[in-house]
């Protein structure tokens, strides 16, 4: 009787479940999400698989989970009623935010509703300075009064954020103790525990979000564990964090701010793991679904992370410059660039007579016109139907039939007619424009960070990712596209590849030349102790703990930092100039320039990433999808631009690619369709990935051009 590890990813419409057996067998299951209680769909979905496969709950060795419970609570303002305690004179920091608005020229702009109303924000008359010295002591009697008032206001949680508490947490600790005594049942979220880093707005916002979702996440996890027990699943439950690492249910309930963007992270981690398996250290992951497309960079085999992000900030491309949307969370998260382009994105013509794609989306309801659920606006999926890319008879393995004639009619009426183009030319144009919008996400994580996308492989998944990937790779000069097995449910698949991981950080702001190695060793020592404690609690022996140190550095006066890896073992005074040099090199690589040698470099914060390495490898070398052996359908006409015209295009199953096929061809699977355009060729590697090689002749002159420039 073999054991299984199970990945479960909750999305807005579907909950994706993937079972991975010890022998490499993959079973996937899509069930509708149960919005009233997400835990129910999970237990039901598992039970269905047990029944179909003749399996028992005790065969499940581990449940790995990505969830939107926390982010939904924020977006729908359904979090806890919380109070906030701040330094006197600063109770409005949370609401004033950074003053910035995320859009220009928009008089109708509304700020996101604050998570703690002003009347529940209380001040205490205390003050620290930036050195951590007490300027004005805190009066315990005042704290007691404030706590009592919050209790009288019936808050469920209290967030505490005092100025400069990262430098000296004494006052925050006093408040914590007093609150524990006077209101032992209240949930507490204290900034010096949550995020001991400088910048009061970022710290306050993060601490508040943590408090806001804490009761909801705790309840949800308790319920889920109970429901799983009922079907005899008593295996450990691990949660995906925004940073791409797993955490225990217990730690997630304590610091739920870490699991807020847990869904999108899993796909990137899966891409990283599979790429490592096939010896690729540089990939760009590309995940496209029904409403958005997301890109992320994996470099030297490592995912890239952003220092902070905004929950509900919408599309991230713009926000790279225009911050201010959503709710700011300063927690490391896999760095994703997101654009509002998906299968449901609406095609339209602007006032200047130029075709546009999105950002409005027909969503899942009414969805594209071809769904025949009341949609009246042409969408990207309709264009793909017209082009022959999507088989109207084979969505979700044929369980949904699409109306191709409706797609053709609406595209003719809304796009081709007004533009004076043939139907296929208009549809192809829409396809290209959608691709060009998504290419901005790819550029955002590559060329805008000083990385040349042509040096990377494109790793495509999500329901629509494999449909666009090869075409985008051609336009970007990317030579190789990888489409993993189960591409359409890859986020749950990715969960299986992740390890337990925690991030620790602390503001430690000094000139590198003025700080001694001893002080840095001591500061890192404190973080390492925390990390070891956490991992030991999760059951890891010291030998299975991996600790990696990074420092955030900048030139003095700069307000943006770069993260530099610091080697293992104690630092010596000789290693500090090496660190400074490594920073200079990274600055030059990222921005194309660096300052003179005598310009002082400042260390801003120290960071530690702690991983728990499981005793045994958790993923078999080779995996295989069960139950995909139906015969391939007949070839069909597909359109690949004026140059090629309509082309009779073979339609294949993944297994058919054991022999390399030249493009054009279409690979149809249960959960995704992969397009191999003319000029490209697709085959399978030893691990079941589709590998598309793009003829890169086209990009050669551009390479030269770049070199000449």
């Amino acid at each position, binding site marked *: 009787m073999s054991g299984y590890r199970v990945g479960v990813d909750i999305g807005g419409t579907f909950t994706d479940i993937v079972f991975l057996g010890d022998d490499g067998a993959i079973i996937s299951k899509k069930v509708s999400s149960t919005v009233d209680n997400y835990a129910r769909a999970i237990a039901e979905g598992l039970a269905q698989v047990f029944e179909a496969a003749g399996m028992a709950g005790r065969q499940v060795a581990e449940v790995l989970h990505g969830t939107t419970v926390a982010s939904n609570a924020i977006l729908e303002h359904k979090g806890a009623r919380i109070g906030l305690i701040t330094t006197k004179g600063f109770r409005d920091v949370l609401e004033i935010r*950074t003053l910035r608005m995320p859009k220009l020229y928009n008089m109708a702009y509304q700020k996101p509703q604050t998570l703690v109303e*002003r009347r529940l924000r209380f001040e205490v008359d205390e003050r620290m300075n930036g050195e951590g010295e007490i300027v004005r002591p805190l009066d315990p009697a005042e704290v007691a009064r404030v706590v009592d008032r919050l209790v009288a206001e019936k808050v469920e949680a209290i967030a505490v954020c005092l100025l400069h508490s990262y430098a000296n947490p004494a006052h925050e600790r006093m408040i914590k103790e007093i609150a524990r005594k006077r209101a032992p049942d209240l949930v507490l979220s204290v900034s010096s525990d949550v995020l001991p880093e400088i910048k*009061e707005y970022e710290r306050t916002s993060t601490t508040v979000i943590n408090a806001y979702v804490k009761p909801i996440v705790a309840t949800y996890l308790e319920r889920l564990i109970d429901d799983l027990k009922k079907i005899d699943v008593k295996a450990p439950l691990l949660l995906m964090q925004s940073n791409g690492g797993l955490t225990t249910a217990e730690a997630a309930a304590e610091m739920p701010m870490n699991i807020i963007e847990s869904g999108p992270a899993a796909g990137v981690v899966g891409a990283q793991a599979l790429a490592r398996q096939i010896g690729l250290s540089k990939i760009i992951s590309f995940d496209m679904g029904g409403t958005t497309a997301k890109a992320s960079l994996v470099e030297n085999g490592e995912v890239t992370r952003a220092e902070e992000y905004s929950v509900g900030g919408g599309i991230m491309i713009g926000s790279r410059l225009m911050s201010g949307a959503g709710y700011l969370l300063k927690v490391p998260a896999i760095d994703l660039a997101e654009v509002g382009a998906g299968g449901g994105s609406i095609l339209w013509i602007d006032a200047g007579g*130029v*075709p546009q794609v999105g950002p409005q989306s027909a969503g899942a309801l009414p969805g594209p016109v071809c769904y025949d659920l009341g949609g009246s606006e042409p969408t990207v999926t309709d264009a793909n139907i017209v082009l022959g890319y999507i088989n109207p008879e084979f969505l979700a393995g044929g369980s949904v039939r699409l109306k191709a004639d409706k797609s053709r009619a609406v595209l003719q009426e809304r796009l081709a007619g007004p533009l004076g183009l043939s139907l296929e030319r208009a549809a192809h144009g829409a396809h290209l424009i959608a691709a060009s919008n998504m290419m901005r996400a790819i550029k955002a994580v590559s060329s805008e960070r000083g990385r040349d996308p042509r040096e990377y492989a494109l790793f495509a998944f999500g329901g629509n990712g494999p449909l666009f990937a090869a075409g985008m790779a051609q336009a970007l000069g990317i030579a190789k596209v990888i489409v993993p097995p189960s591409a359409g449910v890859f986020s749950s698949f990715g969960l299986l590849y992740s390890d337990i991981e925690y991030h620790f950080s602390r503001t430690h702001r000094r000139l590198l030349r003025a700080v001694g190695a001893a002080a840095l060793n001591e500061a890192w020592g404190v973080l390492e102790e925390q990390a070891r404690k956490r991992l030991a609690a999760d059951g890891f022996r010291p030998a299975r703990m991996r600790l990696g140190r990074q420092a955030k550095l900048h*030139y003095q*006066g700069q307000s943006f930092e770069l993260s530099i890896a610091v080697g293992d073992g104690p630092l010596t005074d000789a290693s500090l100039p090496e660190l400074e040099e490594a920073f200079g090199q990274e600055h030059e690589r990222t921005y*194309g320039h660096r300052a003179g040698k005598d310009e002082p470099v400042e260390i801003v914060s120290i960071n530690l990433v702690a991983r728990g390495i499981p005793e045994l490898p958790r993923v078999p070398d080779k995996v295989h999808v069960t139950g995909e052996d139906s015969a391939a359908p007949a070839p069909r006409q597909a359109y690949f631009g004026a140059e090629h015209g309509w082309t009779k295009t073979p339609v294949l199953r993944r297994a058919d690619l054991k022999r390399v096929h030249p493009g054009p061809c279409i690979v149809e699977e249960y959960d995704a369709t992969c397009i191999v355009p003319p000029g490209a060729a697709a085959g399978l590697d030893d691990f079941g990935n589709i590998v598309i090689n793009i003829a890169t002749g086209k990009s050669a002159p551009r390479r030269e051009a*770049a070199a000449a420039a």
Partner: protein
Amino acid sequence: MAELAVDPIEFELFKNSILSVADEMALTIHRTTYSGVLKDNMDYSTAFFDNAGRLVAQGFTLPGHLGSMPSALAAIKQRFGEDVNPGDVFVLNDPFDGGMHLPDIFIFSPIFVDGELMAYGGTICHHTDVGGRVAGSNASDSTEIYAEGLRIAPMRMYEKGKRNDTFFAFLEKNVRLPVLVSGDIRAQLAACHIAETAFVELCHRYGKAKVRFYMNELIDYAERMTRAAIAKLPDGTFSFADHIDDDGIDFGKPIPIKVTIVKQGEGIRFDWTGSSPQVKGAINATLSFSKSAVYCAVQSIIGAGIPNNEGVFRAIEVVSPPGTITNCVLPAACAARGLTGFRMIDVLFGALAQMLPDKVFACSDGGNTGISIGGYHADRSPFIYVDFTCAAWGGRPDSDGLDGISNLYANMASQSVEITEIEQPILIEQYEFIADRGGPGKFRGGAPFRRSYRFLASEGVLQVRSDRRVFRPFGLYGGEPGRPSMNYFTPKGRPTKLIDSKFTMTIRKGDLFSHEVAGAGGWGDPLERDAWRVLKDVQNEFVTLEAAARDYGVVIDPARLEVDVQATTALRARMRQARGWKAIPSVVREPALPQAAE
């Protein structure tokens, strides 16, 4: 060449590409810049021009820079004509030769493809200091340009790839923080470099002829879009005037700013005639800055996501007589002309509110207050703290004005209090909303805040540029004006006193300066405000109990914090009768405008 025709799909793809080049330039500056003014206030812009110097695409842009780039590049072209070579980089900052005010340094690099001049990349950054008599080079009380800092005529900072050491030596000797300024210039150069790499690649993808053709088409496209949007606006003539309290030199002498909009079909004209002659204080705006204000206002009402380029400029006419505060000439001082820009924006929206009563907000807080604190530490190393702060939007036809928000004309971020305190000898003691300051209205004007600075070094210079003390932010359609801006000074160990709105003074250790931003104007009759909204404001201490009754006629039981419905109805009836409106006043000002100006 005549063979080329617009392929709408290829055009859209080209447009995406070239706009992303401009954005990538902006990101480069954002990531590499040193100073808070650039990083947090985002006081920079990037742009892309064709070889004739016509603006094709602008990346992220501070609204105040919308009209600035073309004038600057025109000055370069006028000075150097055809004498432009690969490897050249041009620079300027002189307001009377292409610039706006001295801290804004423009850098342009010509882009050659196969030896042919095809385009220019351009950047503008507000630098922390360019010398002059007051640290930060922002003083509002200079009276001539010569006091304001280093004037850079259009010149080459690189010639055929060779660094102009003379230029850099002059620059570094004349600014207070040469490391910061050089670092930010490097960021600008990096952005120009990105522009070149990306543009050359674009030419190789599309071919030079097509790139030229589509750059031209992008301009025409923007013009078509703009004209189509303008055509939808109501025709007519709309005039509006407001005042700056004074220029900080001629105390108590109001400075009128007036605009007249003539809208006819697809054409629209903005005429600043009637605005004050240029003034002694450093708040004079160049024509390019007055244009920026107009373009910002137009973008805000048509809001169609039109790329900002030459095509937009063609569709919008801006007129301002030379020698005025909206089109200044030598030797006007202009460092602090931001103030005039904000007043121009207030006036533009005042006029547009008459054109589009259901779309435009009441007057915002009056724009940024500029506060700078500079001096020397004990070891004679300099410190300069520059902060621009603003807080509130006017009430809107369907919702309250925002509390704690950047002005629409300058999407600036605040600087972290904690960062400020570890970098500067300053302790910020308050940063909080003030009750009863937003103009009452059916939709209340935004609440402003108070920021207090305690000075910790032994001696320094505090320079403040604020306004809206006398001429308060106007309300619309019965909404009342916002409450005035205030400055308080508490010398160590002595009583607090009210001080001027614009000043430069010496401060010493332990002194406390407190600034209160003006409240924004209200929109609509305050007696029609939903009582529950007033109650909510009272609960959240944006409005006091007394003001709920006095300003809104809403009676709230102080113990239970509930609306007394009967008493409210009665009070509102009495108040309506007492004020005796015959019609809803469209603009509510305080003080009333002098007859001559309206």
